[in-house]
């Protein structure tokens, strides 16, 4: 393949790719995202490939994440425009025969909402999708991430061609006017950052993409890299042009082998086509991107730690009075943006700053990708305009809480963020509002918690996570978090003291005030925000030894509700410690009533998982078996 050398050639080649695509009357797009793969997309792909072997009329795509992970594996058939969910390899021959050959919709594979609820066929009609506005994720279900031709067919690399015909100043102005803010968490103005890096003193300038998406519960960047890697490359090359970058790096976390593979392949193709390398599109720009793999260290998502890690050192952050735009990688000017930020750049160049600002809020324009997970009906990856309320995200797109339970809190911003209660549901989601509410946007993980989640337990979880991930350089972070964790553990074990809350707040303030990097500064957020909004839950643990979410194992006991138990004995079979015994003389439909011996029970929840009647109940504060037996009516 000869290199593409001019903007004119880009256009011609795009048309060529488009007509190559148009030759296929039918497109089948199978979601090949991480979640769908875990649910069997691989076997499904094999089945499709077998069934479609030699068929010239169908283009079969193994695409990036479609987003609706909850009901995966997903298959979209176009132009019939129908979404099939939870598809199994056995369904494939029928799909090929009926939907592909005869244009029929297979009813049983369609998405249904609620019990026997409405049936949805088209992607645009499913509430999960229809309430979103996809920009960065728009191409995910349309293109094969391993094919640069697919990306080109949908206008890929137009923005690059266009940017290279503009002056770097004009490109920079467009990004500045768009008011694009960093999607990695900080929300820093990208235009300003680019400009500072461009004007910083130094011989060489580096363009870096942060793909060390360490926040547990977030997988936006992974899905962009897996689903549309070229958009990130295109954004970075445009950035290099505007900033005057000499070389590029992407730091991908080691836990994302699939993203690594997809991106590596995209880099190779971009080089072959001449979008990377020397004299890109005859502009005089020489630029290439190297991949660097992380090693499983959360703190390396922090800019200065990331640069140390890129250099092959230990990823410890340093004081922030030196800005990374001036002295980053190898102490040279470096511009670091995250995956989603880079992926937004081509869209801004293509459609203009004005267009970008037309969605979202005044101070946080554009869209944001969130991973909506936890105890919500429709988990998955979503892209919404900034300024949308939490309620719209959780209830309209997310379909509400799983199993009709009650909403308790939503955790945003990962370990650096906070828990927001029901009273915050109507807050518009943007960088500044969330920060004011005591949480933060973070990279976009959104974890929904229901009444069966314990906020103290979650705060403890995050604190322990951060202890593990703290690099240990600053004492307040290293030691302060240990002590906070100690107190939290005590509280969840029912040994909390009344003064514990005050202590936690004091410690938290000290950690935030006296740590160097963002990890330490924001580390107490999960604890402080949960005390702010859920003080009553802490007090229930401390004063009543009661865990309102029935999670903390020292404060709960398992029992079997005799009114619900049918006597099937499934629970008895799975109990690892033989805590479940039949109760003599209590004959039921299928056998004898069972009872859990609370003294023996290890609270592993195995019985609760298998009970077909949902007869296993969890009591908090913990009670003895005898107490439960005698007071079961009142306790119900």
């Amino acid at each position: 393949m000869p290199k593409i050398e001019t903007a004119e050639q880009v256009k011609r080649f795009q048309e060529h790719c488009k007509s190559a695509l148009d030759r296929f009357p039918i497109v089948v797009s199978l979601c090949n995202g991480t979640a769908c793969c875990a649910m069997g997309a691989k076997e499904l792909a094999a089945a499709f490939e077998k069934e479609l072997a030699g068929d010239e009329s169908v283009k079969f795509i193994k695409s990036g994440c479609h987003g609706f992970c909850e009901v995966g594996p997903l298959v979209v058939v176009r132009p019939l425009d129908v979404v099939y969910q939870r598809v199994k390899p056995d369904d494939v021959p029928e799909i090929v025969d009926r939907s592909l050959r005869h244009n029929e919709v297979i009813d049983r594979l369609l998405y249904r909402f609620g019990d026997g609820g409405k049936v949805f066929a088209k992607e645009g009609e499913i509430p999960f999708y229809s309430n979103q506005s996809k920009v960065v994720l728009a191409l995910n279900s349309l293109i094969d991430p391993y094919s640069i031709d697919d990306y080109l067919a949908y206008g890929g690399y137009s923005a690059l061609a266009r940017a290279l015909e503009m002056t770097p100043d004009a490109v920079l102005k467009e990004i500045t006017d768009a008011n694009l803010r960093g999607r990695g968490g900080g929300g820093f103005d990208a235009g300003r950052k680019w400009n500072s890096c461009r004007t910083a003193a130094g011989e060489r300038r580096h363009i870096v993409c942060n793909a060390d998406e360490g926040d547990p519960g977030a997988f936006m960047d992974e899905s962009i890299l897996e689903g549309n890697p070229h958009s990130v490359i295109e954004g970075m090359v445009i950035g290099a042009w505007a900033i005057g970058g000499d070389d590029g790096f992407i730091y991908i976390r080691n836990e994302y082998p699939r993203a690594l593979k997809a991106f590596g392949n995209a880099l190779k193709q971009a080089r072959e086509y001449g979008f990377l390398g020397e004299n890109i599109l005859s502009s005089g720009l020489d630029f290439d991107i190297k991949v660097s793999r992380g090693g499983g260290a959360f703190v390396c998502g922090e800019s200065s730690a990331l640069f140390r890690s890129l250099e092959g050192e230990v990823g410890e952050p340093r004081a922030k009075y030196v800005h990374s735009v001036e002295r980053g990688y190898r102490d040279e000017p470096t511009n670091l943006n995250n995956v989603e930020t880079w992926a937004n750049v081509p869209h801004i160049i293509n459609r203009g700053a004005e267009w970008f600002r037309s969605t979202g809020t005044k101070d946080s324009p554009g869209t944001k990708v969130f991973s909506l997970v936890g105890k919500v009906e429709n988990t998955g990856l979503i892209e919404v305009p900034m300024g949308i309320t939490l309620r719209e995200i959780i209830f309209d797109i997310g379909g509400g809480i799983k199993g009709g339970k009650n909403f308790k809190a939503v955790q945003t911003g990962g370990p650096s963020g906070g828990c927001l209660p029901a009273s915050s549901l109507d807050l518009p989601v943007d960088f500044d509002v969330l920060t004011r509410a005591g949480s933060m946007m973070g990279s976009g993980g959104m974890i929904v918690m229901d009444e069966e989640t314990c906020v103290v337990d979650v705060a403890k979880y995050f604190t322990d996570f951060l202890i593990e991930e703290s690099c240990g350089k600053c004492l307040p972070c290293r030691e302060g978090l240990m002590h906070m964790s100690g107190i939290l553990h005590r509280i969840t074990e029912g040994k909390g003291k009344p003064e514990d809350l005050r202590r936690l707040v004091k410690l938290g303030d000290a950690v935030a005030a006296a740590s160097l990097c963002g990890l330490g500064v924001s580390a107490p957020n999960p604890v402080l925000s949960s005390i702010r909004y859920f003080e009553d839950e802490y007090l229930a643990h401390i004063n009543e030894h009661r865990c309102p979410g029935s999670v903390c194992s020292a404060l709960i006991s398992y029992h079997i509700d005799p009114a619900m138990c049918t006597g099937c004995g499934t629970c008895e079979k799975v109990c690892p410690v033989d805590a479940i015994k039949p109760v003599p003389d209590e004959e039921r439909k299928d056998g004898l009533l069972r009872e859990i011996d609370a003294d023996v029970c290890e609270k592993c929840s195995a019985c609760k998982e298998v009970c077909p009647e949902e007869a296993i109940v969890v009591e908090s504060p913990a009670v003895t078996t005898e107490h439960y037996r005698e007071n079961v009516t009142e306790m119900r």
Partner: protein
Amino acid sequence: MLAVQEKYNWLPSEALDYVSRRLNVRKPRIYHIATFYKVFSLAPRGKHILQLCMGTACHVRGAKLIADAMARQHGLQFGKTTDDGLFTLERVNCLGACAIGPILVVDGEYKGNMTTNRANAIIKRLKREETGGEGGNA
């Protein structure tokens, strides 16, 4: 070092000596790095690698219960290899498949919507295969 880790599944000290000589980097620095990053292991790992995701989303969906059950029933501890060298249980923070958590990765294969019972069954099956001779498949 990542390549060494991938090849042997851990970092034998001989390999680190070699890395040190070849790259002309002193050993304390190599060990500093080897102990800082979670991906490196300085002890041999088991035949089967089990990675339990302890990300937030998996946590609220009960990953902790699974971890407790594996510890109690099979003596599997995070970061440890069982005495028979069969299993290593590792704790990972978010594998990016939160939507179907909790996730257990068994020798590189993702298994979603994990429960204590399913985890138990998987470990039992692997154990049976080992004791049931070469052809054992259950």
